[in-house]
């Protein structure tokens, strides 16, 4: 262990005279620890709990104005009310539907284009350039143009989300396809694999880790795009609910919306990671 080595080295240069026979001197054999030390149980929860405590304390003492930030208990009560009258579920459902369909179109497009560009030189020449140019333009900057083309309805929202999700899937899958180890290509040649078998057994499994990494970025990008497009003339969804709450100065509802966005983001990322662990179990054995 590195800490042992460190303390061993320190003991060599230590010149302080030993105080004889006292318990402190005997304990002095174990040198002062320089590393961060043992992990604290539930240590990761410390920061969030501290923030929550400051928020609660501030609200209770009136240091935090409820017009700027509602008290935690108000937020919880509001969430309860919103669930009781069904508004929260309806809006979350609408938002999730938008995000999922946008994500589905985006992932499908990114995957297909990456395969075409990754598996043929002609495909790469035709597709890769435009995608790299598209990558340079933030998708959210395209919203004015998309509104002119598709209006302010549902299709504009889904297309914006799809465009955001498509880029990371394309980039990482294409990279995965292009960086398949040449040694495996050689192996396939000596085994005389046909081209379809080569694709099935070597190229696609080899590109899978890249695709899944792209998926994780795509999910994050989809939620970001969702939050933005729901500010544009939506009549339903979490963003609409929050926008309406802003008009009436209901910070409690805005906080509920933020918490829902956060939970959805964490949940979907966890889902992709779960799939990653299942599908790439051959890799996990190394980490275990």
């Amino acid at each position, binding site marked *: 262990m590195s800490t042992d080595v460190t303390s061993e080295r320190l003991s060599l240069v230590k010149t302080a005279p030993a105080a004889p026979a006292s318990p402190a001197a005997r304990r002095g054999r174990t040198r002062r620890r320089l590393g961060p030390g043992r992990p604290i149980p539930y240590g990761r929860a410390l920061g969030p709990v501290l923030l929550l405590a400051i928020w609660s304390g501030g609200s209770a003492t009136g240091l935090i104005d409820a017009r700027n930030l509602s008290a935690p208990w108000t937020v919880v009560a509001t969430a309860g009310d919103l669930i009781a009258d069904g508004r929260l579920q309806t809006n979350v459902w609408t938002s999730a539907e938008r995000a999922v369909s946008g994500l589905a179109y985006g992932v499908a497009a990114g995957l297909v284009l990456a395969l075409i560009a990754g598996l043929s030189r002609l495909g790469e020449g035709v597709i890769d350039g435009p995608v790299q140019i598209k990558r340079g333009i933030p998708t959210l900057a395209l919203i004015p143009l998309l509104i002119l083309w598709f209006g302010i309805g549902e299709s504009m929202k889904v297309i914006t989300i799809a465009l955001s999700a498509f880029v990371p899937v394309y980039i990482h899958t294409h990279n995965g396809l292009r960086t398949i180890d040449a*040694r*495996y290509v050689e192996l396939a*040649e*000596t*085994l005389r*694999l046909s081209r379809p078998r080569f694709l099935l057994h070597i190229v696609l*499994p080899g590109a899978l880790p890249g695709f899944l990494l792209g998926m994780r970025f795509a999910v994050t990008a989809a939620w970001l795009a969702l939050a933005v497009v729901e500010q544009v003339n939506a009549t339903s969804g979490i963003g609409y609910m929050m926008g309406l709450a802003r008009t009436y100065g209901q910070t409690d509802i805005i906080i509920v919306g933020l918490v829902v966005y956060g939970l959805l983001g964490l949940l979907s990322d966890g889902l992709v990671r779960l799939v990653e662990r299942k599908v790439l179990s051959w*890799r996990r054995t190394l980490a275990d």
Partner: protein
Amino acid sequence: MATHAGGLTATAREADAAVRIEGLVRAFGTRTVLDGLDLTLRPGEFVAMLGRSGSGKSTLLRALAGLDHDAGGEGELSAPDHVSVVFQDARLLPWKRVLANVTLGLTGADAGERARTALDEVGLAGREDAWPVELSGGEQQRVSLARSLVREPELLLADEPFGALDALTRGRMHTLLARLYERHRPAVLLVTHDVDEAIALADRVVVLDGGRIAADLAVDLPAPRRHGTPEYAALRTRLLARLGVDGPDHD
């Protein structure tokens, strides 16, 4: 018959030779690696090839395996239809379990059964469902041997297959390879830098130097080939001298 690079004609296999190479030239840019090389392997013959690094051993092997797409050259080269290659790294696909690595590219309903038999032959029965990362280096190389032999090659090309293994494992692999060779009898071209490995396994040892065969010695020592005998020492010294090493202690 595989089509080889550089305008080579791969003629039909002749009954009396598993491999026939005449005047083979291979160049990468301005550097000529193989310079009019001639070599013939009889069917079922075990030939070891020694040579300093950069002498063109791997280039020759790649030419025989049909892997040298970008090399320029000329000459006659004929190799059998069924060629298997064992690489220095086991080169298993990490995303496929052991059995699927062996059956890769096999066709027919009995592919799984044949692969199981091959794994049994290399002493890995029961490890069919392991992932390659779960195996030791020696075990991985044994899977790679099973993958090569399940195809029943007429020619087995091995490029320093045991170079990355520790001495103890290497010794065991020598025994295994010798046993598998006795059973399957492919022609073998074993590229190695280890003189003792060459003498222990091969019927014939060739030394590659300057892009040509510089020495071609039959190994007619009685089995088992032990280090101590004077014949062994004499052959070893001759081979080392051909490799440009003075004393017998410098390999």
